[in-house]
């Protein structure tokens, strides 16, 4: 019987995104990473008696922008709630979050998977303050150190519906979300710095004997890499199936549990055997007012939304005739897309620009270990690269020389024009010079010349090679080919 069954993985993801605001969510302390402990704190984020939170409007704006980009309905009245739990890294012993009126609800995120595009429904998008950090003192001492630099920094929580049905989709969802928030400028989304934290809710729908059973939901806490998301979900899928075979425990019977994930072993482990009846005692935050964004403000914000990654990719394919793969590479980050578009516009040859960016430039950047996180990271400016593209496209230099020029541009910082001039790389189209090189080559390669005349067209390559070498790459290859073919067919 068991081989007749089908098993479907069901995953919903809660993603916390660390926002790129200058100051914290409810006070004017700087949001910072890596500074000495407790150097970015004030009475408000320390939760001292009598102080009050004031909403960071920029955080709200960025949050609404994200919700809009996800196609959410923006709540006309959004409010703040207190979520209570005791922990030393939470100075007030409540977290200011949003409970029943998040800033946005009911959206979609379109993702690309190996099997094609898919829309994952977004349940809600809300803002909340982060907690501080506990550093457990080394040496087994019975004390912990509290660092509250992070306390009160803004987090955007994006919760999906359980629409994700494979490890690949989970990864695609996470990377798409990262791409989206960086496009919007909402977050640096630096994974090493923990700017994104993932909490998948996982279970299986097992169909057997004509019935479908849901296995108990497992929530995995605090994953901070795409790899961890993939591996932990894959592990859970195997583990839950094995557990199902053994116990036949259903979601109804066992409910939801929380598990941790060990990145060294790739395994999940029991964190709380039974879901503790956590009662957060949510209630409306009386120190903050209900936020009612004006329709005109929302409209304006909607209009400032940048073109989103997939729309941009589709446009590159449509407008510039790029292939799917290249369009994907060129829209991977907003910086890359902006750079490419600048080169395309300035060179007047989008397709050639795409080739230079994805191949020549990408190769040089790879070799130098440079990744472009901002415009300044590109080793040559868009207008300089465009000049090179124009030089090649107009036939001033050939492709080979172009590669050389690009290297020289990166190494010396000079422009393509300066290098071509200085190195004498401009192609020669002078008929006299070309004919002289052709004569020499034919004289030196009688065999290939005869082969060509006998119908072996590929023999032309040897002769061309000789000419290019003799001309130090300056011979215009298109003209040489034309004249050489004519000569050989005389």
């Amino acid at each position, binding site marked *: 019987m068991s081989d007749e069954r089908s098993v479907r993985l069901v995953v919903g993801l809660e993603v916390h995104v660390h926002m790129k605001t200058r100051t914290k969510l409810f006070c004017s302390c700087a949001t910072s990473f890596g500074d000495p402990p407790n150097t970015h704190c004030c*009475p408000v984020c*320390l*939760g*001292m*008696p*009598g*102080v*009050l*939170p*004031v*909403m960071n409007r920029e955080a709200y704006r960025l949050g609404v922008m994200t919700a809009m980009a996800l196609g959410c309905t923006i709540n006309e009245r959004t409010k703040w709630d*207190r979520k*209570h739990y*005791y922990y*030393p890294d939470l*100075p*007030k*012993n*409540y977290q200011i979050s949003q409970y029943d009126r998040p800033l946005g609800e009911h959206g979609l995120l379109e993702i690309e998977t190996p099997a094609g595009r898919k829309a994952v429904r977004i349940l809600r998008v809300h803002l909340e303050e982060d907690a501080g950090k506990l550093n457990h003192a080394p040496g087994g001492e019975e004390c912990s150190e*509290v660092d509250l630099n992070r306390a009160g920094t803004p987090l955007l929580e994006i919760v999906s519906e359980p629409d994700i049905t494979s490890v690949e989709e989970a990864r695609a969802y996470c990377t798409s979300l990262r791409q989206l928030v960086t496009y919007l400028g909402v977050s640096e989304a630096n994974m090493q710095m923990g700017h994104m934290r993932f909490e998948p809710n996982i279970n299986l729908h097992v169909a057997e004997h004509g019935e479908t059973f849901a296995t108990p939901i497992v929530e995995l806490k605090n994953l901070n890499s795409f790899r961890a998301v993939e591996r932990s979900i894959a592990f859970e899928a195997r583990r839950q199936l094995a557990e199902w075979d053994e116990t036949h425990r259903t979601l109804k019977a066992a409910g939801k549990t929380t598990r941790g994930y060990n990145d060294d072993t790739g395994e999940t482990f029991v964190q709380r055997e039974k879901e503790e*009846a956590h*009662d957060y*005692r*949510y*209630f409306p935050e*009386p*120190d*903050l*007012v209900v936020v009612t964004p004006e329709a005109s403000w929302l409209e304006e914000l909607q209009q400032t939304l940048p073109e989103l990654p997939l729309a941009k990719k589709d446009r590159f394919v449509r407008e510039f005739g790029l292939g799917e793969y290249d369009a994907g590479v060129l829209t991977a980050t907003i910086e890359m897309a902006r750079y490419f578009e600048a080169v395309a516009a300035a060179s007047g040859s989008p397709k050639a620009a795409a080739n230079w960016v994805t191949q020549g430039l990408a190769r040089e950047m790879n070799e130098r270990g440079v990744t472009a996180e901002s415009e300044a990271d590109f080793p040559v400016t868009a207008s300089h690269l465009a000049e090179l593209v124009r030089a090649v496209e107009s036939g001033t230099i050939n492709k080979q020389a172009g590669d050389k020029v690009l290297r020289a541009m990166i190494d010396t910082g000079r422009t393509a024009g300066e290098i071509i001039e200085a190195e004498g790389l401009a192609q020669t189209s002078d008929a006299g010079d070309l004919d002289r090189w052709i004569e020499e080559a034919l004289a030196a390669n009688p065999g290939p010349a005869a082969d060509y005349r006998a119908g072996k067209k590929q023999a032309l390559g040897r002769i061309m090679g000789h000419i290019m070498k003799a001309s130090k790459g300056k011979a215009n290859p298109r003209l040489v080919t034309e004249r050489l073919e004519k000569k050989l067919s005389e």
Partner: protein
Amino acid sequence: MSEWLDMTACQMKAAMAAGRTSSRELVAASLARIERLDGRIGAFLSTRGEQALAEAEAIDRRRASGEPLGPLAGVPVAVKDNLCTADGLATTCASRMLENFRAPYSAHVVERIVAADGVIVGKCNLDEFAMGSSTENSSSGPTRNPWSLDCVPGGSSGGSAAAVAARMVPLALGSDTGGSIRQPASHCGIVGLKPTYGRVSRYGLVAFASSLDQIGPMARTAEDAALLLGVIAGHDARDATSVAEAPPDYAAAMDAVDVSRLRIGMPREYFGEGLDAEVDQLVREAIRTFAEAGAEIVEVDLPHAPYAVAAYYLVATAEASSNLARYDGVHYGRRASEHAGLVDMYSRSRAEGFGDEVKRRIMLGTYALSSGYYDAYYLKALKVRRLIKRDFDRALEQVDCLMGPICPTAAFRFGEKTEDPLQMYLSDIYTISANLATIPGLSVPCGRTSAGLPVGLQMLGDVFSEGLLLGAARWLERARGGEGGDALGRPAILDEEGVA
């Protein structure tokens, strides 16, 4: 000279301006009276003698050199000890939890007083975290009523009320969550005003119930109360619930009140069962004074008034349970010296740090917010709150203001209600509605009982009607043949003090 302290703040200002006295003299007199009397009254938890004198001298020097001075220049002021002060004094909230807490910031109202050149002489006793109606719930012991040392001064701003009534200072700040300014003002025979919610910034007021708390002035006259209100009212960007509209000129607003054209509502529900006969009589007499001057008196209904206490003790305790969660011994405040691990440290620190009433309210509020009970208690209380607000809106469509008692009885004796918290809660029955409805409420003296205890008349008005209430209160003071406490006479303890 202690007779300087018989002057109101406005009189002190005039006397200083005329060169008849100095801020140093006033502040010294204030400190001397605190020194002589406060052992028996217990109004102050801390004083700042040297600093206050130095500030007074600095103001005198500035006055001598012709510099412009603020509206409180040189006047001694006291503040309730749940208002943060960055000047080195502790902010204890009369709690063991915060007995050594020194805030690195000052409350907005404290900054305003300092900016207005007022001289803060000390900080006043209160019920722990402002939870109580008698100032008996103080970790430092109770405050006594200057009119009768066997009686409570009311609460929770009992220390501020007693300090003003005993003429230690002409002005004090209190906070009012359910009557904590008005009820002690009534019991101590002074004027106390709870402004409209949002009129005064709560920044630096240690929160009891955030949606109800409001800071307000306590003084012997309506004019003095208006002076202090004018200093502390106004927008503060640090309090999101502080209103943006600028406050009016309260002196002008008071002058504009024409009692002969006033329509006054008497809420039927405030004159029923449980109201002491003497209080009832004094309050009705005061209202009759207005009628005799041509004011129209009409009976109005506040149909949801009977549910106010129940709704209040759910909303207030729910918010309190949350606001007080931060006192855990981790970052500041009391930490139990002996403990076995984190959770035990939390439990012991809070068990040691909080008094019984605070614990009772934290438990009530925690229960009201608990999963499964939230809808039945907290959410329902919010609905009742909206209905109470609507009652006032409707009543205030018919009349300019409402008048009635502050408290069912005059000041009670120590221990009389401590064994029965419910009885204690019911002493707020006429005051808490104003907090639920966010409207302003004022207490002005209207006489003394046969036992010699003061009784206050409550005035309630629409939001931002402080000027009207203060103007009507000043009219009553004058109609009664004196201003504020003067018509009541002087507490005997002042005469026992002798000529110093």
